[in-house]
């Protein structure tokens, strides 16, 4: 078993709290760490990889703290979001160096295996300085896989990766999860997480906002109230009509004109609005969804 455990973990830098009291358990299978930029995902992964100490709480692998515990790296493969430099080494030399540093019995064979898994055998003789971003990403992944670790941590692995490589990477991660490895990757894109992860941990503003399988998270997000801005020529009349509707949760009059409407079923609302307006003789001048962003979804999950 390779289980990562965070127990009331916090991390702050002076006055800025990057991670705020997060507890979670990451076990075998693929787990997606989902959250907007700046949510604390990289900080969490850095702590799980032993490259950042928690300010409070603990971060452990199978019960042992990871910080300053060099032996833990036998079990962990890390794919950081940092660009890979080492431009003066060829792909093969770099992976080989990784294999040797892990003290593997047959570094040559492990190198070739890792290169084959990420489909980088052909360009392996060229220097990393000549590689494209996608190729560097694959080399990073190979370096994390060369010692066959039971735990794989990937920080925004799909960033800047072209669609074909993304598909390849996704199937690779699914396969690793199916083999029983503990795979954790972070992303701010719902669809990426949806296609790969069984378990999703949502992190927003350093807090653990939600946890569950993808279906649960999706439902949580689509069941939220949706807000619209409606500008008409007779706001109060429209408001009184709207508040009578079952799917409308709240209506408020804006001082500058227009209504802010929160609905629980936006499909029904959008169908119903024109009918209501015509019945009351109200002309709709503007209809705009006012919080369509992922950030607002995340904010909602945190309780905003």
């Amino acid at each position: 078993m390779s289980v990562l455990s965070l127990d009331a973990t916090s991390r702050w830098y002076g006055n800025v709290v990057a991670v705020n009291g997060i507890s979670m358990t990451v076990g075998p299978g693929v787990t997606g760490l989902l959250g907007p930029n700046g949510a604390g995902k990289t900080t969490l992964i850095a702590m799980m990889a032993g490259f950042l100490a928690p300010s409070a709480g603990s971060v452990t692998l199978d019960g042992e703290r990871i910080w300053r515990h060099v032996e833990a790296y036998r079990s962990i493969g890390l794919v950081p979001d940092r660009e890979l430099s080492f431009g003066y080494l060829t792909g093969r030399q770099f992976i080989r160096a990784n294999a040797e540093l892990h003290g593997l019995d047959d570094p040559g064979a492990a190198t070739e295996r890792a290169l084959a898994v990420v489909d980088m055998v052909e360009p392996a003789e060229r220097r990393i300085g000549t590689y494209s971003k996608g190729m560097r990403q694959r080399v990073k992944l190979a370096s994390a896989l060369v010692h066959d670790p039971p735990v794989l941590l990937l920080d925004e692995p799909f960033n800047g990766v072209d669609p074909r490589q993304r598909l390849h990477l996704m199937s690779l991660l699914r396969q690793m999860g199916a083999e029983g490895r503990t795979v954790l990757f972070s992303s701010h894109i719902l669809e990426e997480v949806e296609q790969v992860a069984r378990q999703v941990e949502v992190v927003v503003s350093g807090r653990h906002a939600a946890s569950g399988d993808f279906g649960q998270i999706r439902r949580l997000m689509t069941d939220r109230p949706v807000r619209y801005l409606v500008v008409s020529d007779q706001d109060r009349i429209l408001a009184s009509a709207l508040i009578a509707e079952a799917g409308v949760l709240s209506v408020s009059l804006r001082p500058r004109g227009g209504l802010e409407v929160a609905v629980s079923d936006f499909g029904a609302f959008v169908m119903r609005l024109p009918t209501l307006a015509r019945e009351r003789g109200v002309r709709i001048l503007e209809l705009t969804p006012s919080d369509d962003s992922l950030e607002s979804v995340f904010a909602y999950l945190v309780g905003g």
Partner: protein
Amino acid sequence: MNPTILRISTKALLGSRRGIVMSLIPACLIVLAILVRAIAGAGVGYETVLSLGYTLALPLVALLAAAAVLGPEIDDGSIVYLLAKPVSRHTIARSKYVVAWCATMVLGALPMLVSGLVLDSSEPVRALGWGVAGAGAGTAYTALFLALAALTRHAVVIGLLFVLLWEGLLGNMFAGVRWAAVGAWGREVGAAVSDWVGGSDTGLTYALIASLALTLASVWFTGDRLRSFTLRGDE
């Protein structure tokens, strides 16, 4: 020491821009020696040229070597690939030190010897004295600058200031500085080999012990900094 780290660090050194500048410095020194010899004859300007080499060229080479072997990887965070391994941080520090030390010996201390021989081949022991002084100081300088590179991204600037101000300017003004100046210790060691090298009156034993202590402490410190290497997020 780890052979893989030795190999990677050597490649980093040889391929980098700093590595190229580093090779130009001893070349300039030797060329200068040749010119002085050609223009002024044997023995003239010996002290001047070798002092220049000792107080400027040698520490500069040590600084560039240490910074090239550790700096870029820490600056861009890619050292994380070397650190995410079950290898002791002190082993990594020691291996990088060895590579930088070899560069300093070959490009810093050896050229001192060569320049001395160029300027006056009839006094080989004198040249050897300077070479030994360079080797002693170079050993300590490399360690010190390696620790500096592990500490800050501005290692090269701070190292230059240290060399010019502390060891150069203040060292010339105040005699007391010699107890805490690598250059002074190196001279004392060189003076033991040849009277031509002006010693610094700290005593050979003190000079040797101080150099050794600084070297060991600096390499240990580098390893310790690597143990606490931190990956920060964008937040």
